[in-house]
């Protein structure tokens, strides 16, 4: 038994191509998200969107590649720092700043990934965690990160020179386009031939090796993709909150995104979105409780692992006998 076996039943049910159900869900989701900022606070929604992309990026690696990274904060946080610095100190336009941040995360992903895939399972998790902590120490010491203060008051600027992002509502729709694009990209990756090979590696690596697949290349490729998308989420987040701080690169952030994925449902398409929305809502709601939020997160972790390994969407998928 393994993480892989847990999610395999759902993954196997996935036909190649796009099932109509998924198109409907994506369409309904898009309509809801277009209406949402007129009902709910846009900044809160943007936070949910950024974390939904972050968790989906992790899920691409964990749920479909079978690799548990405990260091994804490194990519999220470094992209956040680079974007903030580029927008503030170099005065780059927001789209270039985001691109630069995302590219930095991709490069970092290539470096860390190439080393981390040399180990498997638990060791892989420990190696990614340790490298992320190294990035954290770098962020503490490096001259341009602002130490404990982080980079504050990052200007949002004008996208492509004419879209003024200072209004929360305008920024919301830009973030929506970025995140939705990212999510569709992940969906496309999962359902491509590359994604099929990935799932096969997750389920039976020795067999794929014997079939002549260069397994390490696939693993590295998915690691870099996941890091890049996590970076895109972090870069967007830096513009939304106009802030890049040590919280973004700390191991608690890595743990949080793992929890979102676990709670929503590993290896499901929509699970990470649900998990991110649930956790961000919870944190906002209980923000006044201080350290009890950490305790609550821990309790959710324990309950999820002991009783609820399929996650919210996983349970719904099982009950409705649909792949979600």
């Amino acid at each position, binding site marked *: *038994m*393994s*993480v*892989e*076996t*847990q999610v395999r039943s759902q993954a196997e049910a996935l036909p190649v191509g796009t099932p109509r159900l998924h198109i409907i869900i994506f369409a309904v989701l898009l309509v809801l998200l277009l209406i949402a900022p007129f009902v709910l606070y846009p900044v809160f929604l943007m936070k949910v969107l950024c974390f939904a992309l972050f968790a989906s990026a992790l899920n691409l690696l964990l749920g479909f590649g079978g690799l*548990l990274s*405990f260091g994804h904060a490194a990519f999220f946080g470094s992209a956040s720092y680079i974007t903030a610095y580029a927008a503030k100190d170099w005065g780059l336009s927001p789209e270039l700043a985001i691109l630069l941040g995302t590219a930095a995360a991709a490069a970092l992903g290539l470096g860390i990934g190439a*080393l*981390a895939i*040399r*180990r*498997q*399972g*638990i*060791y892989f*998790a*420990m*190696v990614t*965690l*340790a*490298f992320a*902590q*190294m990035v954290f*120490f*770098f962020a*503490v*010491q490096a001259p341009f990160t602002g130490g404990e203060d982080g980079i504050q008051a990052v200007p949002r600027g004008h996208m492509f020179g004419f879209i003024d992002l200072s209004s929360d509502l305008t920024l919301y729709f830009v973030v929506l386009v970025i995140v939705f694009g990212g999510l569709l990209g992940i969906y496309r990756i999962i359902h491509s031939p590359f994604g099929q090979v990935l799932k096969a590696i997750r389920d039976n690596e020795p067999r794929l090796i014997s079939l002549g697949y260069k397994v390490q290349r696939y693993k590295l490729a998915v690691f870099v993709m996941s890091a890049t998308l996590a970076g895109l989420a972090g870069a967007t987040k830096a513009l939304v909150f106009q802030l890049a701080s040590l919280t973004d690169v700390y*191991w608690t952030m890595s*743990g949080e995104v*793992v*929890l979102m994925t*676990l709670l929503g449902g590993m290896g499901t398409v929509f699970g990470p979105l649900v998990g991110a929305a649930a956790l961000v809502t919870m944190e906002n709601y209980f923000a006044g409780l*201080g*350290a*009890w*939020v*950490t*305790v*609550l*997160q*821990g*309790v*959710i*972790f*324990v309950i*999820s*692992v*002991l009783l609820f*390994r399929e996650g919210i969407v996983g349970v719904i998928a099982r009950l409705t006998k649909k792949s979600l």
Partner: protein
Amino acid sequence: MFELLGISPQVLFGQLLLGLINGSFYALLSLGLAVIFGLLNIINFSHGAQYMMGAFVAWMLLTYTGINYWWALALVPIIVGAFGVGIERLMISKLYHLDHLYGLLLTFGLALIIQGVFRNEYGVSGLPYSIPAELSGGQNLGFMFLPNYRAWVIFASAIVCFCTWFAIERTRLGAYLRAATENPTLVGAFGINVPRMITLTYGFGVALAAFAGVLAAPIYSVNPNMGADLIIVVFAVVVIGGMGSILGAILTGFGLGIVEGLTRVFYPEGSAVVIFVIMAIVLLLKPAGLFGRAAS
């Protein structure tokens, strides 16, 4: 006074001593992780939190009941170890049939809970725990000043590491343990209660962490976050050493502590990350770790 590469011997030996102290904690903690991993096949993410609990329980015993350091050194590992036994029985034992990653996730959640509770109760500023009177003061060795308590930490840690190694590698009980690591089903067929052995092993690993916590209490301030960052460094130590051998965990722990101390002398900016850099190099050259077995 002689000088080495422009570094005064006081600084050099001072940092070496500090490195050895850190190494003592790395060794004790990575030893506990290795013992637990050997039999349970899980990485105990709450190890850092249990180390912190050790320091806190020692502080509580002293503050609320007046029980002194020496008794704490004996009692705290038992108390925290019993807590570990409870955790293993109630939660971890439910996960053995699943992927080992779930054990990592579960213990990560437990670490969050333990740290959060202590942070709520005691804040993050840290509580003082004074050095026992018998070990205050120090020796002037001519080239450096050696505080008695620090010497004791290195000595105690080395003794405990040695005893653990001896118990696992050289006694009958240790032979059962090693056999159960290789093939639990067969050992169970010989009439040995493997589940109980697993429970006690986890308790013992946790007790080692708690012991390290008591040793650390007078050096570092007793603080809810003291284990969180330390455990990640210990993970890197474990990746470098490989978890295949008990002796490997001990040697790697002490060795990396010294390397870190030396880095603080010659290139202070790099001291926080040197262990991670070594980890990267080891992953490139010998992915299984210095003492690890090839297959993982």
